[in-house]
């Protein structure tokens, strides 16, 4: 049973981790995009539609990435080229995404979905327990793991990553050094959108292979919170995402076990547990002010107009 629970946790956590990683990159470059929920749902509908029309869940994944990415470019154009307020634009993006996806998806409502099948990795999947849990997963899970380590390496070990973090910390100085702030931010926003789209694809191809309006049901907002929770560090996003997923699934089992044991625990309290856990960890993390300050991109959310 433990194995089954773990598999459920992975399914529930993966979209959170992926969307949060994308937002992390965007925020590290200094752009606060509150439109994660909107980009995610656009990814979900694009992935579902593509998979339905082509019959291939893999093209579906691609569709989700492109859907989320294209949608994020709208945000990029408004906030980076037209220098609109990032918070307002992000919120508008979410509202637009929820509505637009509903419109696009109307034709696909009630259709049985195309499920993304797991890829069983030879040899590794024969390892007892871990083999089945970690190496018999679908492509999106493997991508999520690759993203965690890839982004970690990119941000803290690569030259481009260093430049990007410099922009996020002080776009004025970075600009003076000759780094192209706007172009880098465009790429970061696009990457964030693509990740949110991939997370959406996971929802409509793996988690619940169907299209239902609003099916992201607030997961984009949780991903946003995870970035702050993780103090802008990829490995902590992974930990935070799985903590949230595990507590969320765990509380369902806790309800059932409490029932069998005849213990009365209010289910409302248990449902609130993932959020409580998140807040508690957040308090513990922010206890150390210095590390928080070091990790927070100082230019986050500030508009940048290059002087010519």
């Amino acid at each position, binding site marked *: 049973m433990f194995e*089954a629970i773990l598999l459920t946790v992975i399914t529930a956590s993966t979209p959170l981790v992926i969307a949060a990683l994308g937002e992390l990159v965007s925020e590290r470059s200094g752009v606060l995009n509150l439109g994660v929920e909107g980009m995610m749902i656009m990814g979900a509908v694009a992935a579902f539609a593509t998979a339905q029309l082509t019959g291939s869940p893999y093209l579906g994944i691609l569709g989700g990435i492109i859907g989320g990415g294209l949608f994020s470019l709208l945000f990029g154009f408004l906030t980076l080229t037209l220098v609109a307020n990032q918070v307002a634009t992000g919120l508008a993006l979410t509202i637009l995404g929820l509505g637009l996806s509903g419109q696009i998806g109307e034709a696909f409502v009630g259709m049985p979905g195309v499920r993304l099948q797991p890829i069983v990795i030879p040899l590794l999947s024969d390892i007892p327990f871990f083999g089945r849990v970690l190496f018999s997963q679908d492509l999106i899970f493997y991508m999520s793991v690759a993203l965690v380590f890839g982004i970690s390496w990119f941000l803290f070990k690569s030259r481009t990553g260093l430049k990007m973090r410099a922009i996020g910390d002080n776009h004025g100085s970075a600009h003076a050094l000759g780094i192209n702030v706007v172009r880098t931010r465009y790429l970061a926003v696009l990457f964030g959108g693509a990740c949110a789209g991939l997370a959406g694809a996971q929802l409509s191809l793996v988690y619940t292979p169907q299209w239902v309006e*609003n099916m992201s049901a607030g997961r984009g907002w949780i991903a946003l919170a995870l970035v702050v929770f993780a103090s802008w560090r990829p490995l902590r996003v992974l930990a935070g995402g799985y903590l949230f997923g595990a507590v969320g699934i765990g509380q369902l089992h806790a309800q059932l076990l409490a029932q069998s044991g005849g213990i009365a625990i209010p289910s409302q309290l248990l449902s609130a547990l993932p959020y409580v856990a998140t807040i508690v960890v957040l308090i513990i993390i922010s206890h150390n002010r210095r590390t928080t300050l070091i990790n927070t991109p100082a230019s986050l959310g500030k508009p940048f107009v290059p002087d010519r």
Partner: protein
Amino acid sequence: MKKLIIALAATTAMLGGFAGSASAQEKKKICFIYVGSKTDGGWTQAHDIGRQALQKALDDKIETPFLESVPEGPDAERAIERMARSGCALIYTTSFGFMDATVKVAAKFPDVKFEHATGFKAAENLATYNARFYEGRYIQGQIAAKMSKKGLAGYIASFPIPEVVMGINAFELGAKSVNPEFKLKVVWANTWFDPGKEADAAKALIDQGVDILTQHTDTTAPMQVAAERGIPAFGQASDMIAAGPKTQLTAIVDTWGAYYIKRTQAVLDGSWKSEQIWDGLKDGILTMAPYTNMPDDVKAMAEETEAKIKSGELHPFTGPINKQDGSAWLAAGEKPEDKVLLGMNFYVEGVDDKLPK
């Protein structure tokens, strides 16, 4: 966004209300507030099918604007009030959680008629309507007891309100009428609408050993999980056979259309009165989806029970019934009053859960 557009349209209509009062008189506005999206495949979709039937039946006399995905809570009051101001003659608020908001707005707009689904608070201009879903759940319980090898079913519940508790009890009573040892496990998802969470709840129940699944949430996600894991399940609010062609045993299908037409006609005639309507299988406000994926004898039993409930021969809540703790609730042959059912806040014997307070 759609919500926003409709809201804008409603506001515009309100502003233009003075100029265009002549045209407004031609077509009465019959308005709907939905808690989910109109294509959720479940609860809200059933209401929207009812709305479409209404529009079709009285097409030359009415228009039927609606607001979808209105959250229960403070937003609901604003949404209902906006509808009331926009000149609606009758407003249907279609979720239990809209109750207090509807009561408040109804008090402010005495000339507008309100109808609130599944609630229990009425007023001069506020009627309530509901379907006796428990009748369908009793039949489901009987089928579950026949089909489950372990005698253990899983129930995905939304919120601990009387409507849901009543459904759980009816299911258990139906099951026990076939197998007195039948047990029911309940998981509270604390949401009406979240495909992911509903699927998680379904998986949790199956992992804990149930071999048949039923739900009181709005999407087809649990049906899909049941299909994947190869256990049978029951649909909710709409026929969910598309999500589980080899999985769905039957579904409680809400058919609000005839009711909406009847009551709207009453508004047009001026004969509308505030009533508390609670119709059942015999009135056709709920129907059972075709009995599928079960042996013929189970199907025959289900059909017989359905016929008995329709004829009034069988009331699912007929004593002797004990409460969960074993204390007596109904004596042999005794039937509860409707208001007791509508305020139900306790489990009957056999439910394997402590009711959240």
